[in-house]
Structures are given as C-alpha cells and as structure tokens.
C-alpha cells in the first residue's frame, strides 16, 4: 500500500516539474514564465518531498521534510514577486498579444513609487521640496 502511494506521489511530482520545464521553454513572455515556474515547480517538489517522508517513515525525517516544504511555500512567491518587479522596472516587454498592462503609467520612472497617476507623485515631490 505504501509503495503504491510513494510511486504515485513521486511520479506526479516528476510530471509537474517536467511541465514546469516545458512551460519555461514554450511560454512567450517573461511574466508567464515566472507564473508557470513558481506554481508547477512548487507543487512538484512538494509532492516529491512528501513521498520521501512516507518512504522513510520517521519523526525526524518527516519534520525536516515539513520544514523544507514550508520554506519553499513561503519563499517561492516572494522571490517571484521580487524578480517580476525588478524586471518590470528594467523594461522587459510584455507579450505582443497581452491585452492589458495594468501598471502602465502608475510607476514613477525614477523613484519607483506607486500611485494611480504619475502626476500625483510629482505633485507630492514638489510639495516636499517647497516645505
């Protein structure tokens, strides 16, 4: 029974990581690539680690595996958000078939502040200078 569970879980994990690899090759755009990478690879590695925990079946190994899974679940979205933000600032283009760019015109190009319009940020800066 345990053997079948380990086989199923590790095969699913390997398939999800293979899907992430195919996605990073085939996707047309950096942001779509980030999305595919983060979600599919996190799920795949989580399934592989759970199958390792079932295989060894000890308290110490299981707690270690849970620590690794928690760490990956916490850090993957943070890392993806930081690299996406930095690459948006450094001028990576969207895919030509993308319909909307919600952030267009909302970032100040120098200070990287976020507002609904650039004019508001400039007004704020001028008011600070006048003070």
């Amino acid at each position, binding site marked *: 029974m345990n053997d079948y569970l380990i086989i199923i879980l590790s095969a699913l994990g*390997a398939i999800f990581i293979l899907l992430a690899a195919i996605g*990073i090759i085939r996707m047309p755009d950096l942001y779509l690539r980030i999305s595919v990478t983060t979600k599919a690879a996190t799920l795949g590695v989580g399934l592989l680690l759970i199958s390792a925990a079932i295989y060894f079946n000890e308290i110490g190994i299981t707690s270690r595996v849970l620590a690794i899974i928690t760490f990956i679940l916490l850090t993957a979205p943070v890392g993806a958000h*930081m690299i996406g933000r930095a690459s948006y600032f450094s001028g990576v283009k969207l895919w030509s078939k993308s319909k909307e760019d919600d952030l267009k015109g909302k970032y100040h190009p120098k200070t990287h502040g976020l507002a609904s319009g650039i004019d508001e940020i400039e007004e704020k800066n001028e008011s600070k200078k006048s003070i």
Partner: protein
Amino acid sequence: MAISTLLIFIRFLIGPTLSDRVVALDLLLTTGIGIITIYSIYTDQPAFLDIAMIMALIAFLGTVAFSYYLDKREKNE
C-alpha cells in the same frame, strides 16, 4: 527529471534577457531539490535531505540578490 533539467538549461542559455536567466536558475535549483530527494530515496540515505534544505535557502537568497541588483542597476542608469 533529466529531460526537464536539460530543457531548463536550454532556456538558461538562450534566455533573451538577464531576468529570464535568473528565473531559469531558480527553477534549476528547485529541480535540484527534487533530484536530491529522489536520490535519497534510491540510496536509502536520509542525510541528503539536509542538502536539499540548504539548496532551497541558496535558491531564495540568489533570487533576492539578483532582483535587488537588477533594481539598483536600473536606478543608477
């Protein structure tokens, strides 16, 4: 797993921008965690899982450091 590592490495080599390479590096390290897990099941030695944990730490630190560097480089130009 070997096929997926090869595919990611292709993207790492041909990636048009630096950010593509950073994303591919992150995915390579995450795939490395999976490979280490399978190897530790195969050889029946649970000590390899420690290496997987340290690899997760290094992947996160590398991604954050690269994005910080990209941000700073953009501001200086």
